[in-house]
């Protein structure tokens, strides 16, 4: 689908509405192994995005995605603000720099994942959102062009989020719990999974 204003509006509002709908679940996960504010923080950030949807969606696609990132940075209030913010800002920059969608989606997505890794000084395997974003990126690379790619991405994201449960947290507030972090799904991994599902479902509905 072409990334025109209507498409951007659909994708951004789908992502925001899904995160907001999952706010309580994300907060409950964060209460188990963190400071319990992930859901409310993400909700605040994406409500701010929805509040500016008209302005954001009217921009060229790269600028629109970057605006989502900047809005999250300025409003979320926890580490997830700069982390998701950096993801969307880098993704937007990649699109502005000439990456074409959907052909170059994996490359553009990789810029976002790299930005999260740098901002959080983290990598996959440390019980964070990267444990969902990295396998999603791998799937984007290895299964590009498959007609059922959105379904595959949803499955990969769900499985990857679940796989954070037995992991030991070594980054973020959950790392303070040491081995007690084991047995709980990481809230950031879960919110990344929610976003992947929201975008994939919206893409399928428009296809």
């Amino acid at each position, binding site marked *: 689908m072409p990334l025109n204003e209507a498409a951007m509006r659909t994708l951004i509002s789908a992502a925001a509405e899904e995160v907001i709908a999952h706010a309580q679940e994300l907060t409950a996960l964060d209460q188990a192994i963190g400071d319990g504010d992930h859901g409310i923080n993400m909700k605040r950030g994406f409500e701010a995005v929805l509040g500016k949807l008209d302005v954001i969606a009217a921009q060229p696609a790269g600028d629109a995605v970057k605006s989502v990132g900047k809005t999250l940075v300025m409003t979320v*209030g926890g580490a997830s603000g700069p982390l998701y913010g950096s993801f969307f800002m880098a993704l937007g920059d990649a699109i502005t720099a000439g990456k074409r969608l959907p052909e170059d989606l994996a490359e553009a997505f990789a810029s976002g994942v790299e930005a999260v890794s740098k901002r959080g000084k983290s990598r996959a395997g440390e019980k964070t959102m990267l444990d969902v974003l990295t396998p999603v990126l791998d799937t984007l690379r290895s299964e590009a062009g498959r007609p059922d790619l959105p379904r595959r991405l949803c499955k990969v994201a769900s499985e990857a989020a679940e796989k954070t449960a037995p992991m030991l947290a070594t980054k*973020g507030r959950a790392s303070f719990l040491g081995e007690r972090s084991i047995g709980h799904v990481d809230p950031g991994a879960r919110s990344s999974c929610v976003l992947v599902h929201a975008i994939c479902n919206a893409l399928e509905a428009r296809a």
Partner: protein
Amino acid sequence: MSDTVSIVIVSHSPDVARGAADMVRQMVGSEVKVAFCGGNVEGGLGTSVPHIMEAIDAAWSPRGVAILVDLGGAETNSEMAVELLPAERRSLVVVCNAPIVEGAVMAATEAAGGSPLDRVRAVAEELSAD
């Protein structure tokens, strides 16, 4: 006053930020500019990139600004705030890897003696060594 490095304190809690700033002022009076912020945009526990940018602006010194933070989100949001500063200011602001209260007091004391930014940061970060 702006001939010393300045201090910015970023806590999840407005009370902790204010209290740490009080302790710094008790040590160095008004020799060193100190700004602080704490809480998210709604005033709850958390940190806020725009508030951090305002604090950096309020404390601004051409000698540089040392930021002291408490937990992870304060560090991530402070690093983000630094990156969003005008290019000419970015290299003059550092986020110190040090305990927030002791780090702020030590950094301010060092700054009061006229030390450059890298020295102020090093003194604060010695507290985190081993």
